[in-house]
């Protein structure tokens, strides 16, 4: 049974207040989820009021400013700062997205930042993605062929390659899976949009030899069919991909396979 309320130890208390040059027109108000296992306390929301110059226009720049100038214990993942590594995925103003590609100017006066939803929290904005990566491994995202490997590369026509467009650009940021209510309640059995998009990427590859085996693996009540086409995944994807359509195509493949056999 899905648990809609947060467990007692996960409920959020009001946290500290920081003001850094916080006056005038350029003032920004940011509320950030904080949790630290050493504090022994429940999670809290810290409020930061920041004025003056910030090095860049994005939410990630604001977080870096907080870490540099106000509270160096603020913890978050970041790396490429240009939307290709997927590290800084978090829930900003109620939706999952990348902090490095979200302009502060598009957000309301108070910016609320939480870690990706319904995951165990390691510290502050850093969630534990172990289950997410395990599910990725389950779909075996590599080319499978029987027999000896050929001496030359396996060529693919431009048309066959085009079938993979929109499924191989995933950066594994987990924005889609953790935006999905179905994934929140069943992440132990439902693979989630990110892993299924990756599965589709190999099902759609004309060089792959394990199509039926891959489909068979997905053919149960949970792994694939816990997708109820809610479409939160597609509306969250910071790369503009459409995991819901990929899942729908896999469902169709499964049905037509059964008709064929």
């Amino acid at each position, binding site marked *: 049974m899905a648990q*809609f309320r*947060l*467990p007692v*130890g*996960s409920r*959020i208390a009001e946290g500290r207040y920081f003001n850094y040059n916080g006056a005038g027109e350029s003032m920004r108000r940011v509320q950030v*989820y904080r*949790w630290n*296992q050493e504090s022994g306390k*429940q*999670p809290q929301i810290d409020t930061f009021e920041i004025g003056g110059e910030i090095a860049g226009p994005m939410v990630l720049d604001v977080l870096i400013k907080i870490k540099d100038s106000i509270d160096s214990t603020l913890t978050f993942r970041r790396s490429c700062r240009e939307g290709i590594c997927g590290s800084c995925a978090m*829930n900003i*103003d*109620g*939706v999952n997205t990348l902090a490095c590609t979200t302009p502060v100017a598009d957000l309301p006066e108070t910016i*609320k930042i*939480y*870690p*990706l*939803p*319904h*995951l*165990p*929290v*390691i510290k502050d904005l850093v*969630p*534990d993605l*172990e289950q997410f990566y395990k599910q990725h491994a389950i779909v075996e995202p590599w080319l499978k062929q029987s027999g000896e490997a050929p001496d030359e590369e396996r060529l693919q026509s431009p048309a066959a390659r085009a079938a993979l467009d929109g499924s191989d650009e995933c950066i594994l940021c987990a924005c889609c899976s953790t*935006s999905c*209510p179905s994934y*929140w309640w069943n992440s132990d059995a439902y693979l989630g949009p990110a892993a299924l998009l990756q599965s589709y990427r190999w099902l759609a590859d004309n060089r792959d030899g394990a199509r039926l085996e891959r489909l068979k693996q997905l053919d149960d009540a949970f792994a694939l069919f816990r997708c*109820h*086409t*809610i*479409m*939160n995944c*597609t*509306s969250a994807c910071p790369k503009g991909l*459409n995991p*819901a*359509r990929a899942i*729908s*195509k896999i*469902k*169709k493949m499964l049905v037509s396979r059964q008709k064929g056999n």
Partner: protein
Amino acid sequence: MVDIDRPTSPHLQIYRPQLTSILSISHRISGIFLVLGVVCLSGWIISLALGEIWFGWFDAARSSLLGQVCSVAWVFSLFYHLLNGVRHLCWDIGWGLDLPQVYGSGYAAVIGAGVLTGLLFIFA
């Protein structure tokens, strides 16, 4: 990793409601509500078979304010569930899965259900 009692990050509490998720949960709620409607509809017909006293009692309940509000809500739920069901059937054959289409068909389902409900009460 050492076994630590980690908090679960907030989900329903903080995720912004959007048309995608709202219409999805509405589909379920309207379905459950319609089951209740079928029970009441059957009760209404059974009361007719039981005779004048029972039917009069049931009809009074139906024409009360609560009964009327529920009737409108049931008709709306029926049309919404029907139209959104068609939306789901389209998705199952791979139609209309782009985000603009999802939003367009979503608004169409809600507005369509409203219009059909209005028409039914005007002409019925």
